[in-house]
């Protein structure tokens, strides 16, 4: 039983990160019907920028670990958001009226471009985060070991997701985003600046992806330029599992995928972990083709 709960917390920690990255896929898909393949690389960029800022600024020496980490997170999110916005301007906006396939190819190209740029700037070696940025303690509850950092990651992920959900549901700008998701033409007629809405989506999604990269760096320590691929793939899967285009769906999908992986590894086989996760995905999609939280929230208004 201890092992079960331990695996559950293992799964939730990984799943929280998947969920945070999945939000970026889901938002862009919701508004543009485009799968932003470069999102995983924006995540990598977050991890690298975080390390660069961390080592060059020495933040935690001045203001204490948690304040330092928060400032760091804001800076990383801001910078990655700018890159995300530039990406939209250069790779996606010129192709908005073109067939869907062109944009998909452009997204793949952008992914390769970003990944190689990171490699050329930072080099092919992996980098290691300093280990003492945040206190590394582990708490024990009934034989289940939970590192404090893990709780922090999960809490931060959940807070960000909740904030995003409230933002899209309760604010005027959020309503505009949802309107653009339903019908861009009609939204334009209602006086919504669709270009600005899309730009906003490309600010929020990459910012969340970048913050996930920073958290992975801070917690696991080791980063390299190809790390975005595997996380991107898993997060994309999580978005589909939960119902792509749906914000709570991305959260549920991410957490669920993490837990399925951990339990699959525990009770079936470690080497088959990924295969099990994808079999579950396919099974769910056969039963519920729209994903777990199927219909897009935006259409329910």
């Amino acid at each position, binding site marked *: 039983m201890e092992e079960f709960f331990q695996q559950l917390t*293992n799964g939730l*920690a*990984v799943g929280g990160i998947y969920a945070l990255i999945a939000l970026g896929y889901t938002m862009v898909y919701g508004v543009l019907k485009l799968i932003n393949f470069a999102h995983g690389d924006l995540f990598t960029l977050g991890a690298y920028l975080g390390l660069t800022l961390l080592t060059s600024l020495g933040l935690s020496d001045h203001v204490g670990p948690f304040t330092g980490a928060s400032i760091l997170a804001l800076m990383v999110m801001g910078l990655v958001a700018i890159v995300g916005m530039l990406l939209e301007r250069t790779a996606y906006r010129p192709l908005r009226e073109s067939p869907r396939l062109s944009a998909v190819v452009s997204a793949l190209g952008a992914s390769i471009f970003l990944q190689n740029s990171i*490699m050329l700037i930072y080099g092919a070696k992996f980098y290691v985060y300093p280990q003492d940025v945040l206190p590394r303690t582990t708490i024990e509850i009934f034989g289940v*070991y939970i590192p404090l950092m893990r709780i922090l990651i999960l809490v931060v992920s959940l807070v960000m997701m909740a904030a995003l959900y409230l933002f899209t549901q309760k604010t005027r700008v959020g309503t505009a985003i949802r309107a653009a998701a339903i019908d861009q033409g009609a939204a334009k007629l209602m006086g919504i600046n669709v270009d600005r809405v899309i730009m906003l989506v490309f600010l929020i999604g990459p910012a969340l992806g970048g913050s996930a990269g920073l958290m992975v760096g801070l917690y696991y320590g080791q980063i390299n330029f*190809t790390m975005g691929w595997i996380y991107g793939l898993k997060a994309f899967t999580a978005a589909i599992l939960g119902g792509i285009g749906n914000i709570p769906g991305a959260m549920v999908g991410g957490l669920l995928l993490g837990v399925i992986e951990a339990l699959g*590894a525990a009770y079936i086989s*470690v080497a088959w972990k990924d295969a099990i996760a994808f079999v579950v995905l396919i099974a769910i999609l056969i039963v519920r083709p729209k994903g777990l939280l199927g219909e897009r929230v935006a259409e329910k208004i």
Partner: protein
Amino acid sequence: MKRFLTLALALCMAAGGTGLASAKSIKIGLMAPMTGSWASEGQDMKQIVELLAKDINDKGGINGDQIEILVEDDGGDPRTASLAAQRLATQGVVAVVGTYGSSVTEASQTIYDDFQIPQVANGSTAVRLTEKGLKYFFRTCPRDDEQGRVAAGTLEKMGFKKVAVLHDNTSYAKGLAEETMALLKDKGIEVVFSDALTPGERDYNAILTKMKSAGPEAVFFTGYYPEAGLLLRQKMEMNWNVPFLGGDATNNPDLVKIAGNKAAEGFYFLSPPVPQDLPAQKAKDFLAAYQKKYGAAPGSIWAVLAGDGFLAVTAAIEGAKSTKPDDLADYMHKKMKDAQGLTGTITFNDKGDRVGEVYKVYKVDAEGKFVLQP
């Protein structure tokens, strides 16, 4: 006009003269992972081989000929390696040194054999590479079955009765895990857990939790250092104090950087001696020169073994007084006895494996240094 002609003639002669003095050069290829996740190994391999070549050239070359090193990047990837091998083969190299990973070497092996170019691999320890009976393939590193024997022997000597074995599904790591498990069974040591992780991930808590519940007294991980570092760190965070042992692919100083000193302390690994523990005087002199030129010692033994591959090739050219592939291969197989290498003397057997050379056991101390165990 006449004066001009004389001048031109004189210039031609001068040019011809220098051309004659440099004689013809012998091209030796180096195939190494200059990019990709093993890039640091490849950079060291290049620096070592180039320094050795410069040393020989400064002393007048081999049999009066200068050596030229042609470097090709295999990216640590089998597909890139087969392209690199083809490029080298068409550039007139007499022999090739390299490369690091077994699966990468395997992708290039038959290409060199087809072109009849002797290849001396340096970090490729999978058993089957030399069991295929390729005439032109040699290696300066020991084989996995030897490592498996040392691993099983060490686990037995340390008194463990229940052991977990973890690999990463690469041909090298899986092979070593299987060799070791078979030997452990013969010794009556129970393997309570054996499975594979996916390299390149960040979170191995699920695997560690599963291993922990199987209750092993020690864990033997046969994969590479990036994953080993993460495993050590995450093992510490879940308060699991089981001893960890690693195969020779964990022999890299970056392991300690990833895990952190505290988590890496007490980690055992098997390996041929690390560069600073090499006994031969030639190695000590060379490492001093290397340190002077590049500012730091080579990271791992695998790059040093590329130097041995280069020395074996030059010894063969010198001894056989030829650069023909058949002469070189014959010489290395049959006539070369105790050629002086950096890691000791080099002799090859019929299969192309190096004779002698023993694995050592190392332990990481509190400062993250690799300490040779008696």
